[in-house]
């Protein structure tokens, strides 16, 4: 218990004193996960919507595979990406290993199935509701996707935040592909792993509390931004 209390105090002190190392790794944590989130959403939101409204041959199989991919163990993803990006691997020439880009790649692979699955579920329900109307109005495929995405935006936001949550707390994959290099690829989660490994529990806890606060802060921020519309409009 004493460790936890000390950790809390250290956390507050680190934040108040604007510890430069803390700021550096926090910013990097956000850069990596938010970067991965943007890329993942660009893939997953249209994909999930498309799966909800379009009938094609292997649709059921695709949906099952997508749902199954949510269970991909992050550390395995990290290992596979590492092997692919290693100099001795197929994409070694790109020199991406041990860079933040590699970390973004690994996180995109991990969170895209999650966002796509939730999107698909939400869009499927909405499509069932709008189906007759949108067909009657002769909407094109593109117009349908636009309408569903806009009207379902609250659920899509939840999907995105779920992806963010999964990414910001992830440590296995980004440790392997990033290498936890000081001033280059160290982020909050890998720093916590490092300090724990050194036995410096109070610093590790302090970083942990900062991470929790950051994750909650981003969630609150996004919810607040989306509520600047009038009451009842959403």
């Amino acid at each position, binding site marked *: 218990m004493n460790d936890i209390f000390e950790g809390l105090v250290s956390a507050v002190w680190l934040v108040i004193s604007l510890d430069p190392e803390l700021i550096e790794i926090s910013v990097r944590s956000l850069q990596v996960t938010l970067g991965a989130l943007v890329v993942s959403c660009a893939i997953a939101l249209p994909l999930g919507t498309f799966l909800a409204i379009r009938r094609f041959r292997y649709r059921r199989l695709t949906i099952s595979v997508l749902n199954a991919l949510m269970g991909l163990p992050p550390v395995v993803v990290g290992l596979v990406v590492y092997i692919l990006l290693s100099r001795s691997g197929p994409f070694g020439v790109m020199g991406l290993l041990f860079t933040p880009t590699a970390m973004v790649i690994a996180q995109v692979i991990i969170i895209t199935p999650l966002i796509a699955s939730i999107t698909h579920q939400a869009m499927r329900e*909405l499509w069932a509701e*709008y189906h*007759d109307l949108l067909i009657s*109005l002769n909407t094109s495929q593109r*117009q349908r996707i636009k309408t569903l995405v806009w*009207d379902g935006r609250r659920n899509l936001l939840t999907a995105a935040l779920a992806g963010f949550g999964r990414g910001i707390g992830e440590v296995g994959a980004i440790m392997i592909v990033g290498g936890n290099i000081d001033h280059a690829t160290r982020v909050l989660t890998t720093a916590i792993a490092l300090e724990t490994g050194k036995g410096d529990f109070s610093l590790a806890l302090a970083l942990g509390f900062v991470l929790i606060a950051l994750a909650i802060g981003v969630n609150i921020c996004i919810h607040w931004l989306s509520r600047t519309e*009038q009451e*009842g*409009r959403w």
Partner: protein
Amino acid sequence: MTTILPLTLQDVWVRRRGKRLIGPVSTTLSGDGITIIVGPNGSGKTTLLKVMHGVARISDGAVNWAVPHSEAQHHQGYVFQTPIMLRRSVADNLRYPLQLRGMKKDEIERRMADWAQKTGLQDHLEISATRLSGGEKQRLALGRALIRRPEVLFLDEPCANLDGASTRDIEALLTEARDAGTRIIMTTHNIGQAKRLADDAIFMLHGAIKENGLAEAFFETPQSTELKAFFRGDIIA
């Protein structure tokens, strides 16, 4: 302006999973006015309506407009029995069909305000459409269907779930629309409503047209025993 009418159905059959829903159906719709389709539940009224509107696949026969189908699609409107509201404000619901067309912003606003007035929803513009009462929703659905000034308007039992006051409002809007030149084709199971609105009528039974004709003759002097029974209020199995 070229009209999309007449609408011709030739020997149309609709089968689903081996069951015959409607068929054979042959009829022509043209001119002005309100056509009411009556018949007991399960007689195929809704299927017929959907076939006419082009949202139900036919198994045999032909459905033809005076112009190609793709063009005819743009000049029709459809109102469902249970109104489908977009999860948006009343104003946005009205704007939606016009935005699909890529209409200019000020024109959209003008028409939206106009129809909000006509449907009596001008004080509810910023409310979420899902929060309206049943009658208000159906008025909105009707306004939304008419806002594109379609030549033909289909309605599937629009007042089935509404109270008397709302029904009266809807009927007033329909007669106005008819007077403004919209051809209306509507199903109902309410004989009183049919009598009030119809210029001509069709009686559907067991998936086929049993009898049809101008309103006065149809309601005053029905020819078939089934239609007479239907007017009496008998159950026709």
